[in-house]
């Protein structure tokens, strides 16, 4: 298990009196892209938030790079090398593109090439043209690129990517898929929550399906694509 970067067992979390996660178990290997799938309300975003510490886990363990992180403050978790890209994007609308990137900037761990705005602009050419624009004045797709670029500025080892294709035009969705694949090429591990099977199949090696706050199925993404029954049981509405 040397190559496991994220290892979650028995994770429980919720909001106030409402329990959402009833013991989630999952692992993410170094350099792997895994898709966290499931219907609306299955607990995908909640799982990512609980791993990131934005929601305090009520039970269970979360190990990142061999270190227990459950209950840690989000900024400590981020500093250990776990990046988080929220579903609602949450870019800083009053700040320029460059300033948004500056907020995310953290030194790279030794021996790894650091992300710079210039490298990221090569990654997302659209952003290069608007580096001094106020982020609030950008389109949804551009904001989605910016929120990923901002997280990469922290030089993470693994990234939690929450619904990157949601609400975007098909052409932008394709760019997002490209971006995820290129992150993988850079050696990043990515846990991407996704409802869209096509997108998941395009980027991920493996799928985990959440239902009612637990992982109900996991396996190769190709198996999932081939098996109509599983899809009908857990994914289609």
């Amino acid at each position, binding site marked *: 298990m040397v190559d496991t970067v994220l290892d979650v067992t028995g994770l429980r979390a919720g909001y106030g009196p409402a329990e959402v996660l009833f013991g989630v178990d999952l692992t993410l290997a170094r350099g792997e892209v895994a898709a966290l799938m499931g219907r609306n309300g299955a607990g995908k975003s909640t799982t990512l938030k609980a791993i990131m510490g934005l929601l305090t886990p009520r039970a269970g363990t979360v190990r990142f790079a061999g270190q227990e992180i459950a209950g840690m403050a*989000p*900024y400590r978790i*981020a500093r250990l090398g776990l990046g988080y890209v*929220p579903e609602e994007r949450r870019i*800083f609308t*009053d700040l320029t593109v460059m*300033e948004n990137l500056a*907020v*995310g900037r953290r030194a790279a761990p030794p021996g790894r090439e650091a992300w710079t705005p210039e490298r990221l602009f090569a990654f997302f050419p659209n952003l290069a043209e608007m580096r001094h624009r106020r982020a609030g004045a950008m389109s949804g797709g551009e904001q989605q690129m910016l929120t990923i670029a901002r*997280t990469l500025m922290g030089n993470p080892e693994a990234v939690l990517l929450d619904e990157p294709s949601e609400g975007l035009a098909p052409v932008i969705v394709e760019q997002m898929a490209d971006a995820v694949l290129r992150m993988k090429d850079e050696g990043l591990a990515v846990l991407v929550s996704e409802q869209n099977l096509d997108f998941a199949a395009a980027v991920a090696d493996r799928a985990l399906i959440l239902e009612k706050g637990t992982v109900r199925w996991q396996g190769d993404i190709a198996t999932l694509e081939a098996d109509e029954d599983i899809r009908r049981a857990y994914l289609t509405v």
Partner: protein
Amino acid sequence: MEWSFLLVQALSGLASASSLFVIASGLTIVFGVTRIVNFAHGSFYMLGAYLAVTIVPWLLEFDRSPTLFFVGVLASALVVGLLGVAMEMLLLRRIYRVPELFQLLATFGVVLIVQDLVQLAWGPMDIPGPRAPGLRHGVTILDQRFPAYELFLIVVGPAVLALLWLLMHRTRFGVLIRAATQDREMVGALGVNQAMLFTGTLFLGAALAGLGGALQIPRISANAHMDLSVITEAFVVTVIGGMGSVPGAFIAALLIGLLQAFGVLIFPKITLVLVFLLMAAVLVVKPWGLLGRPEAAAGRAVLPEGILDPGRMDWAGKVLAVVALAVMLALPLIDAYAVKVGTEVLIFALAAVSLNFLVGNGGIVSFGHAAYFGLGAYGAGLLVVKAGLPMEPALIAAPIAGGLAAALFGFFVVRLSGIYLAMLTMAFAQIAYAVVFQWVEVTGGDNGLVGVWPSHWAASREVYHYLTAVLTLAAIVFLRRVIHAPFGATLRAARDSAQRADAIGIDVRMHRWLGFTLAGAAAGLAGGLYAFSKGSIDPTLLGIPMSVDFLSMILLGGIQSVLGPVAGAAAFHSLKDFFLPLTDHWRLLLGLSIIAMVLVFPRGLAGAFASLRRRPA
């Protein structure tokens, strides 16, 4: 009127605007990042002035140079900045997640503590500061003499604005502050240690307040009332400019400075009313201020804090109520002192229940409830002293006066929510206070008016006690009925989610406005009764400390219960009446108690008790 005179008037308006901006910018920056409205910002301002009148003369002993003067001013600001750091680390850090009302009260606790500590350190006398070397002369502008120091102050505001702009746009710390103003959780998720950011922000904010205070020493003596007078003005500036917006604060400070400078020429006595009109006009058009933006949480459903289910009184409650009533009625059997305290407890119980009608039942956190209490007292008192009417019509006028004032202010108040609403209620209360304080011919100013005595038949303490008991209990029972009635339930619905209440066809604003007016009328009745129990009225009845007393009462009794505030009023007032003569440091004691209460029982005493009882097995 000559042009030169108008010019000088404009310049002095700009000088005050400039000073006001320096202070308000710190308040707005701290609010933007921490989302806490820091009452103690005024205390930092006062500390800046006191430190400067201590440090600067000492430095000038070495050499009367302008350089050393400004070194002293900056040193004072830095020391105040460090005090801000201490406040963040010791207090604010522990209360970022507690409800806004408790945050406000906790920072007000710091105000009380600093007031006592300043008096201990510097004594009760005003301390005049030295004039600035090199800026002591007057400058002749179009045949008018104008102080050079005022000209210098005019430059300070824009200079601070420019420096803040550079800090906010050219440094990582500034960019992080701006990012955190919008979404501090996301900033944390990107690996930024918020604790450091918040501490740094408090240093900056407190240092700006300290600088504002230190710069005032050639103009005004350091005195013990600087804190609350400046915090009100700073609140008005940040509300008009938009909370969290530094440029907004600059524009608002300019507007207010010029309005006051020229308003003096047109309406010499009522410049405050002009400020009120400006604030009202801005808030009607732009509820979030000139450059502010709606709070992300506004209108969204929140976890209810306050009365959940008024319920029926259980047998224990009934027994308790009967015993309390019996004790109240039997007080005349003990002694005159017991009667005096009992009468006041009844009056404050009504005031507290009326406040909790807003806070606990309506989610309307009024920080200026004393205004309606005090205006009720003045309404009744003026009728007796100035119009020669007897007590009976005066006691009818008291709730009308409180209710009318609440209707007028409430019209604007109910357009806002949360912290904006709290600041607006406080600003209105301070304006009412200032009017009563300044309108000496009618109100007697600071001294107030004496001779507010009950009619002959109610002249004895005992009879007046029973009269008070009948009226306050009737009003409390009435308010309790309203809370149980559909109107009360509607207010609770609007409290828990204004949007959802709106969506099912409830006119939220209208209901809140009626509720605010009703609570004001009840407080007005309490104020009228208080005036006759004391035989006099004075401006402290409308002051912030009185509002905070009311809030402490409902906090102590529990905002979750309908009649808890009665117990809170009884406990608070008895303790205060007992301790006040024994100690010179009541404010220190009260401030520490408020902070302790917020830290130990962030959901109120009753909340702690209820959660103990309700804890699932």
